[in-house]
């Protein structure tokens, strides 16, 4: 049987249903339940044999684990958001009316992301990404505060321009495919595009890739296209920040990497590596330096997301089995880690009633479990062992250096800069004398623990199937 219809169907159905649920508690439960259902059916992908590609959707080594990952994080985020939203209601920052909308949109968002991942058609993928953008835009503006509206507006404008450019790139890809495949839907279908890629028109493909890189790169928050990202993360509700950082950026990267595959398959097209490396390094450096002066804890980690997108882009730009493996691993683990971090800082900012770093001092002293989870998460995200990201950074740095020493050194400097910035802030947040007023912790840390456990295991031992997927994709990526 084919699990895909279910995977896409559940969120859609839930979205429709939630649009009519007015009580926010029930809504939250339904939301979490639906996400759980989606996750469970997505697990079917692992057990059943991979379904044949259809016109709409397909599954291959690349997106299978991304689908599972996405549905999993979407589930934990929904779980976390239940507690989080309840607290927001109590503090009166949100009204039940908002929440009805919020929950429905949440499901639409997860539907859009899953569709973008599984879409077998570059047009559909593009549409899905646009849908995801619009939903997140309205989610970011949920609080209706001036800053949130501004953030949403900024996000919306930059996002739509990006979308437009991405569409143009898509058209150009179709155009490039024309020569080999003639008119018709085939020329938009991933599964057939890969087969024919070697015969595409390289020049058009190059131009197309530039537009796609800029377009989807905007969604992925690569510098200098990143401007929307920090504010959107900082002003929206935390579960959405978690989903944005954890999933939506991945989706955008997924699109870029897919198109890179086409170029890699085509001999005459220019190697996209240098472009990716340039974008990635600029993201790494700029984001890393921006970390030093952040005062808003959510914006801080938003910039760290940009930095990691940069690292991943560099990895894919380097290419080669090791670097690609590192990039894929980093992609998966970053989404797990970053979402966990956003859960913790969401709880922290609720417990302290502020997002200002100065006022969240001595977290380990005031809320030990929360504080140490944040420390663990930050250690993990900055690539410290025994967490998984250490492995990917190890592979990336040590495999880059012998091939391009200068690049390796640059990578070292960039990583160290970002590390310094993040740790500087962490020392302020987690340690030191704690504030007097210590509100009890609301919401559960179990999702955080789950994520941390996963990345811990990944750091020590990677399951066989995952490795084989990564390796096969690393091969195709060239």
């Amino acid at each position, binding site marked *: 049987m084919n699990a895909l219809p279910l995977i896409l169907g559940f969120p859609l159905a839930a979205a429709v249903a939630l649009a009519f649920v007015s009580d926010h508690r029930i809504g939250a439960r339904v939301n979490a339940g639906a996400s759980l259902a989606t996750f469970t059916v997505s697990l079917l992908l692992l057990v059943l044999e991979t379904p044949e590609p259809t016109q709409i959707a397909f599954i291959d080594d690349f997106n299978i684990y991304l689908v599972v990952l996405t549905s999993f994080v979407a589930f934990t985020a929904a779980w976390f958001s239940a507690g989080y939203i309840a607290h927001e209601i109590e503090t009166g920052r949100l009204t039940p009316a908002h929440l009805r909308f919020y929950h429905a949109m949440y499901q639409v968002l997860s539907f859009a992301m899953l569709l973008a991942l599984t879409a077998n*058609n570059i*047009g*559909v993928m*593009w*549409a899905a990404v*646009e849908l995801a953008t*619009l939903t997140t835009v309205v989610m970011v503006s949920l609080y209706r505060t*001036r*800053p949130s*509206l*501004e*953030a949403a*507006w*900024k996000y*919306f*404008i930059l996002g*739509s*321009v990006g*979308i*437009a*450019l991405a*569409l*143009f790139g898509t*058209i*150009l890809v*179709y*155009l490039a495919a*024309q*020569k080999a495949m*003639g*008119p*018709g*839907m085939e020329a*938009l279908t991933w599964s057939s595009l890969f087969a024919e890629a070697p015969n595409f*028109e390289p*020049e*058009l493909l190059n*131009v197309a890739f530039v537009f796609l890189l800029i377009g989807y790169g905007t969604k992925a928050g690569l510098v200098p296209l990143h401007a929307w990202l920090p*504010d959107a993360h900082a002003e929206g509700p935390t579960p959405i920040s978690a989903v944005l950082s954890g999933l939506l950026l991945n989706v955008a990267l997924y699109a870029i990497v897919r198109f890179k595959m086409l170029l890699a398959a085509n001999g005459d097209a220019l190697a996209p590596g240098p472009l990716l490396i340039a974008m990635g390094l600029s993201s790494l450096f700029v984001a890393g330096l921006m970390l030093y*002066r*952040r*005062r*808003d804890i959510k*914006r801080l980690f938003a910039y760290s997301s940009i930095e990691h997108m940069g690292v991943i882009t560099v990895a894919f730009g380097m290419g080669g089995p090791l670097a690609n493996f590192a990039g894929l691993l980093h992609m998966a683990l970053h989404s797990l880690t970053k979402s966990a971090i956003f859960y913790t800082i969401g709880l922290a900012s609720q417990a302290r009633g502020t997002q*200002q770093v100065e006022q969240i001092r001595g977290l380990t002293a005031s809320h030990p479990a929360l504080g140490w989870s944040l420390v663990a998460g930050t250690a993990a995200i900055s690539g410290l062992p025994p967490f998984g990201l250490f492995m990917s950074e190890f592979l990336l740095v040590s495999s880059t250096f012998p091939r391009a020493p200068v690049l390796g050194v640059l990578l070292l400097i960039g990583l160290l800069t970002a590390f310094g910035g993040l740790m500087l802030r962490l020392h302020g947040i987690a340690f030191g004398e704690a504030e007097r007023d210590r509100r009890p912790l609301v919401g559960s840390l179990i999702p955080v623990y789950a994520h941390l456990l996963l990345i811990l295991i990944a750091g020590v031992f990677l399951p066989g199937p995952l490795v084989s997927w990564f390796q096969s994709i690393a091969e195709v990526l060239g």
Partner: protein
Amino acid sequence: MFATLAYDLSHMTGAMVLLAGFAVLYQRRLLGVLRAFACQAVAVAVAAAWQAYSQEAPHLYVTAAIALLLKGIAAPVALDRIVRRLDIHRTVETAVGIGATMLAGVGLVVLAVLLVLPVTISSAALTRETLAVALSVVLIGFLIMITRRNAITQVVGFMSLENGLVLAAVGVKGMPLVVEMSVAFSLLIAFILFGIFFFRIRELFDTLDLQSIESFRGERR
């Protein structure tokens, strides 16, 4: 380069679209901008219709209709309303001088041509020239967005960018989903217009952020 486009009507329309783009760049008065843009939209509609006819692809008529109705008529009218309602001063405020932007536009066109020249065009796909035109229209639309201050001109820039897209899309033989995409885009544009109404924005991308700096001052240090 305009000499190359002679016989094929699609080239004609393409050229008209590009010219309209330049016209938008050139205008100093908002209403003029709107009119120039309307012309561009109409030109796009004509191009779409012509392609629909020549490719026997009836669905492209829908695209043409959308282009004509929404961008050719509805949007200009709505924007005109906004101009009167919010009595935005009628002159275009430029971030970069008119002349400079014109030059930049020419430069972009050259870039587009450079990019397209090496393409060995293949069977019955749209010709190099049309592709070049579409590319330059997209770039010029973008240019308009970043060199003009008024909300109106910026929306117009966005829409003309999208005109370029449509031009390319309809040009390609048998391009599927064109209609869906233009619909999706109309959604975006609707959103933006709504936003302008909602925020009563005089200057789409500038003033708002002056306030936003206020609110993010927490980040300063």
